[in-house]
């Protein structure tokens, strides 16, 4: 089964079966037609033989009529003669028509016609002599008799030939009938074979799909279990892990409040470190929880979001920072998209705050938001079957410190940081969260570093028609 993995096989089998069926129908029709033709030709032979008899009979009537007249001189014998002659014209004409497709018989008929003509001439001669009260010409009569004999001989040959032809044709028809039966049987068998092959192809394909579906269902169950475990993990992280951490922080704080002055310098430094680490741990746990909550798509509703309003809202939210750091945010008209609102807000929030955070200390940050629609094929590393899809491409272009292009992928990994914490604070959750959100919306996010460390560009791609509402 070369074509096993393709629907083409089924189409091919279907086409062949259809072709076979049409061919079979045509053949059956042709065979029936052929049988009809053969029957027709047998009938034709019978008609020729009848016509031949008719001709001899007519000649006999003419013969009897004119002889009667010659012997008796009575006019009444001329009636059958005249009738015979009249009929003769019609018979010879019809005969000619019947045998026109057979050159041999046609030649014979011509000879017969010639002989008849000569015979008739002799008869007419004698009849006119009787009418003139003369004696009939015995020589002419004898001549006429001879002509008649010749006609009879030819007519017999004619008859024999036609009989032979008839036998031949009957034989051929028998063979043709036998062949027809054989062909019909053969074709039926072949068609049946094709039907079986077709069925097998379908069966194989169907079983493959059923087993594929089973695997898919198993995977889905696994996925559901994994999701449940993730939720369990989130619960554990939020309660059980935070409980001792909270105590570390609380006791640490009590210690600072009550006994700080009694501690040695070394002890104070250590205590501060303990507190800082505990606070950072708290931050990491909070971020991890936020991330896992974002990953969990349950009960998230897709709705229409006007990105222009959204950008305005974020600008207002950041207004303090914007005026303090002299940030410029320029945005073209953005589309209305379908998405989970709080996640999209988070996405824009993270990207804009990142651009502000990683600005050059000397240059005031400028963030440009540009938009266009693109085909899926323009997104690097996209799945083949998504290449035809249309995406909103929203790009955040900044003039900040940028990044080394080799880290373009790495920056999206959770808790991955490119800078020392003392330079830029944070846990490294921001872009991981962005990627999570974008993939929740069946989209993509790509980071691009401008050359010469002149800033970074983050492209987000969201499908124009987001039919895929969150499942599970």
């Amino acid at each position, binding site marked *: 089964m070369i074509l096993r993995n393709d629907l083409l096989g089924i189409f091919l089998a279907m086409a062949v079966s259809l072709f076979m069926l049409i061919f079979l129908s045509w053949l059956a029709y042709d065979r029936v037609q052929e049988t009809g033709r053969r029957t027709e030709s047998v009938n034709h032979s019978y008609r020729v033989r009848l016509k031949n008899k008719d001709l001899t009979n007519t000649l006999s009537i003419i013969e009897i009529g004119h002889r009667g007249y010659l012997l008796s001189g009575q006019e009444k014998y001329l009636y059958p003669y005249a009738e015979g002659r009249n009929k003769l014209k019609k018979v010879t004409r019809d005969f000619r028509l019947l045998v026109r497709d057979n050159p041999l018989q046609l030649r014979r008929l011509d000879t017969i016609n010639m002989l008849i003509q000569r015979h008739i001439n002799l008869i007419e001669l004698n009849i006119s002599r009787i009418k003139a009260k003369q004696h009939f010409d015995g020589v002419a009569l004898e001549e006429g008799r001879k002509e008649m004999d010749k006609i009879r001989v030819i007519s017999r040959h004619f008859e024999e030939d036609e009989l032979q032809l008839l036998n031949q044709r009957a034989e051929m028809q028998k063979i043709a009938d036998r062949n027809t039966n054989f062909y019909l049987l053969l074709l039926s068998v072949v068609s049946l074979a094709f039907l079986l092959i077709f069925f097998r192809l379908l069966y194989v394909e169907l079983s493959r799909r059923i087993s594929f579906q089973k695997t898919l269902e198993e995977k889905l169950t696994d996925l559901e279990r994994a999701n449940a475990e993730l939720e369990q993990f989130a619960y554990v992280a939020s*309660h059980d892990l935070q409980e001792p*951490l909270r*105590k570390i922080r609380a006791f640490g704080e009590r210690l600072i409040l009550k006994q700080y002055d009694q501690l040695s310098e070394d002890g104070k430094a250590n205590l501060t470190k303990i507190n800082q680490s505990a606070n950072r741990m708290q931050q990491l746990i909070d971020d991890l929880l936020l991330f896992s909550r974002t990953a969990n798509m349950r009960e998230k509703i897709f709705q229409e979001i006007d990105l222009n309003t959204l950008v305005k809202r974020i600008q207002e939210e950041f207004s303090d920072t914007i005026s303090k750091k002299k940030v410029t945010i320029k945005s073209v008209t953005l589309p209305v998209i379908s998405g989970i609102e709080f996640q999209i807000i988070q996405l824009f929030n993270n990207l804009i705050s990142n651009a502000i955070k990683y600005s050059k200390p000397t240059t005031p940050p400028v963030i440009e938001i540009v938009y266009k629609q693109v085909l899926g094929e323009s997104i690097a590393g996209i799945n083949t079957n998504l290449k035809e899809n249309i995406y909103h491409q929203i790009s955040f272009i900044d003039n900040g410190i940028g990044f080394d292009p080799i880290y373009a992928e790495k920056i999206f990994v959770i808790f991955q940081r490119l800078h020392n914490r003392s330079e830029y604070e944070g846990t490294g959750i921001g872009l991981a969260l962005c990627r999570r959100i974008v993939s929740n919306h069946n989209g993509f996010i790509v980071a691009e570093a401008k050359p010469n460390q002149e800033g970074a560009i983050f492209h987000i791609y969201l499908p124009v028609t987001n039919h895929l509402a969150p499942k599970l």
Partner: protein
Amino acid sequence: MNRNATILIADDDDDDRYLLQSVLDDCNLLNPTVFVGDGLELLEYIRTDNNDASVGLIILDLNMPRMDGREVLKVLKTEPKLRKIPVVVLTTSKSEKDVNQCYALGANCYISKPSSFDVFNDTILTLVKFWINLTHLPIKPEPFKAFY
């Protein structure tokens, strides 16, 4: 609330009891503090207490063995004799669901167990002051040591 009213604290965690006691000590309240380990103990204490007005404030943890905070809250706020006692829910949970549920059951205040007790101090002091004022409105409240 009587100025010597007891502050009753239900919490099963020894560390938290210790922390809470030390924080309350910092508030310099005159009120005695009593600790119980779960809901059943709390109800037992409050019912066998002869002095009607002896318990003036309940600080309640949600997750406790035998009878948890929600169940206690339900009992406290449905018994006519007990429902006037203010209840502060003090728990690790920050979930909105828990907060809403506790307020629906009649909690007077909900505080997530903090790692920093500054806010907690303020909250407890405000509550104590408020409840004393409220229950002693016709009488001039005596100033607490903590509020001078």
